[in-house]
């Protein structure tokens, strides 16, 4: 009898403060990405193409958008006798009154679910990253090395190393080798190999270490579990992943990663990667093909069905249902579902969330200034930017602002409107 042997658990519970208004009403994993999809679709599509069909999603923060997105799991072919996606929300019982106190605690609280499935390996993934990977290669490596834990790493810019979990690998071959040192967000990084938060565990070991971890005060895989396993001399391997890795922890990073979708040979190639999303979410399957008007200009951009383009769009990504009216201009921007850019409005380096209208003649964002960072302006969902409003670079506009909050003439660079 065939039964799946690897259980994948996706950590999708978190929100990130720096991503600000984009995660006001949804977890980070459900943030729209790629002109029609969500961030978590990358992990789910990788699982699909890796033939891993037993998946659990640990969700906590504002989980509705995510639950809605996953649906039955049919979009990723994870529906069937032995296939399925289970969403595991936090719960209370006689012994445990807690929310998920961290990624490791979330898995610990669901160990009965995990043990019921008797997996031969447990693959813990972050639902927040943009990458393509065949997990089977890593699992093969894990099995061949008889490892207790195999963690995937990727080379990053040394100057950014301090932001990640950094490992040192004693390479046995190109694929990887024993992990000899690991530190979460080190002040002085000893290498440029960053953890992708793709962890393959021997189940018995995971059960042990999670039970042990419950005695501590902190419950994170990167910060607590890996270091404590290193200390206890478990057999831990590092597996080197080569390829693109995009992350979206800040609005600037979200924007930069999105720009990697554009160009003739984009670094993120959705078609080649075989990205799948749930077309029933927001009913995007019912959108008609995009209509391009007689005066429109489309330049180095991507747009999904349901858009109406009558103005100018350059270096931008338009989600389903975006309307760009005549005389409007959208440059270097990412506009989520059903955004309307009215006649004469001018957007430059803007990330606009769902259902926002940019009024006629409004000017939002601008070219990169000398300041640090990219200076992307982000506008939260369900806003109506008044006609002729001026909003500078690096501004943040909170979601769903009442009309009277807009009784201002303009928003200067880096200002926040809430």
């Amino acid at each position: 009898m065939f039964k799946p042997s690897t259980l994948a658990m996706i950590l999708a519970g978190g929100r990130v403060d720096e991503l600000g208004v984009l995660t006001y009403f949804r977890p980070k994993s459900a943030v729209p990405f790629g002109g029609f999809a969500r961030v978590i679709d990358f992990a789910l599509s990788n699982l699909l193409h890796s033939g891993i069909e037993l998946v659990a999603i640990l969700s906590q923060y504002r989980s509705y958008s995510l639950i809605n997105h996953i649906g039955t799991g049919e979009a990723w072919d994870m529906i069937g006798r032995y296939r399925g996606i289970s969403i595991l929300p936090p719960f209370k019982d006689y012994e445990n009154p807690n929310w998920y106190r961290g990624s490791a605690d979330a898995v610990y609280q669901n160990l009965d679910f995990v043990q019921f499935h008797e997996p031969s390996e447990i693959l813990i993934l972050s639902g927040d990253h943009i990458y393509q990977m065949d997990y089977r290669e890593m699992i093969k490596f894990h099995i061949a090395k008889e490892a207790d834990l195999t963690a995937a790493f990727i080379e990053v810019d040394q100057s950014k190393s301090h932001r990640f979990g950094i490992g040192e690998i004693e390479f046995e071959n190109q694929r990887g080798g024993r992990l000899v040192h690991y530190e979460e967000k080190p002040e002085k990084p000893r290498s440029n190999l960053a953890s992708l938060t793709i962890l393959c565990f021997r189940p018995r070991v995971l059960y042990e270490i999670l039970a042990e971890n419950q005695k501590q005060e902190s419950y994170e895989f990167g910060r607590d579990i890996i270091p404590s396993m290193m200390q206890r001399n478990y057999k831990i391997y590092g597996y080197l992943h080569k390829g693109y890795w995009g992350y979206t922890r800040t609005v600037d990073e979200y924007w930069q990663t999105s720009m990697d979708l554009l160009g003739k040979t984009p670094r993120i190639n959705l078609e080649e990667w075989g990205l799948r999303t749930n077309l029933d979410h927001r009913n995007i399957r019912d959108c008609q093909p995009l209509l391009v008007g007689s005066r429109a200009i489309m330049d180095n951009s991507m747009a999904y069905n349901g858009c109406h383009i009558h103005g100018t769009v350059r270096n931008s990504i338009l989600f389903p249902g975006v309307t760009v009216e005549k005389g409007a201009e959208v440059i270097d921007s990412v506009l989520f579902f059903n955004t309307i850019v009215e006649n004469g409005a001018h957007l430059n380096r803007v990330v606009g969330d769902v259902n926002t209208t940019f009024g006629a003649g409004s000017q939002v964002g601008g070219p990169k200034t000398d300041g640090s960072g990219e200076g992307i302006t982000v506008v939260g969902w369900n806003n109506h930017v008044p006609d002729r409003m001026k909003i500078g670079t690096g501004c943040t506009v909170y979601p769903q602002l009442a009309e009277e909050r807009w009784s201002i003439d303009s928003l200067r660079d880096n200002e926040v409107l809430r």
Partner: protein
Amino acid sequence: MINSKDALVLVLAGGVGSRLNILVGHRAKPAVPFAGIYRIIDFSLSNVMNSGMTRVGVLTQYKPLSLMRHIGGGEAWDFTGRTRGVKILPPRTGEKESDWYKGTADAIRQNIDFIESNPSEEVIILSGDHIYKMDFDAMVEYHRYKKADVTVGMMVVPMSEIHQFGAGIVDKENRIIDWEEKPEIPRTNLASMGIYIFNTKYLLKTLHLSREEADFGMHILPRAIQNDRVFAYPFYGYWRDVGTIQAYWEANMDVIREDSGISPQEWGIRPNLSADGRPMDRAPARFFSGCTVMSSMISAGCIIEGTVENSVLSPGVYVAEGAVVKNSVIFEDSFIGKDAVVDLTICDKRVRIGQNAVIGEGGDNSRPNRNFPKHLYTGISLIGKETEVLPGMKIGRNCILLPKHLENDYGDKGEVVDGESF
């Protein structure tokens, strides 16, 4: 309480539609792709769904496979559930009075068992090959209000076109008092849309009268008008029978035009993207630097490097650098090579147009296709499914390239002149 939503719907989807030429070479007319992501039958099925009817039979006969795959379990139109359903009704043998369907009325007659096993007050009979939006719920209410035995959906068309239709003459009450099927000399401009509501009992009774009566317009309606209560239900708005290449092309162009009155999405028309497996995974359309796109409809999964003007592109079409596509309808996953020109052309699925090839442009509209002068006479050329047009080849106007021509089939041929087929 009797609910108009309980009406049983029968969609006639068996016709050959031979005037669509190679577009119906391997699929039934209702399954012909339209407006990028739709198929013609999506309009009828979505109208039924949006009118609230939940029990549907689709009568198939000619090349039904593509159509059956497209309809699937009917999930796309919400026809799945405890009391909902869409059933494919092909002709069958081995039963009393069974045979191929010989006409619209004959097809319904051979499915009397289906009608009887789905009890209803009214049966709605539709054609599966029209582009329109209509509320059948309102039409059923009208039918009841008029205490009609039969109600026929009718609309005003130009006098010059009435010879293609069934024409009805009505009194002040909209009761049809006279009927002419495809009249050469028109007496009215009121045309039948091929949409009928019958009282179920009346339908069963009238179908039993004579097995020789094969067609609604020719046989059933004229007698009903003489003896019983037959009313016209006036329809106003966009409606097209896309049964000819010219009408099919024009309706596609209407979707692009802002003032044409047709808008599939606003009408609530639902495609079934997963029917072919692949399309549901398409990424957004990509527009490269230096491309030009004007007055066009572009589906997800397209990549545009060159120029697209006044055209409708299905998912996955690639328009390479320097290529020009204009006034054309291009089906899924076709490839238009570098510097190629495609004008006034309908390309079926997975066509490959080689580098520098020219189709249509520069040709002469006035030479109709020699084999099918009544199909192609305005300049439109047809490229069959999976056919490859070699680099540098020249194809004229009103030309037909049959499906699945590959490189080796051409020999020395470098040109297909106006009005020729290959």
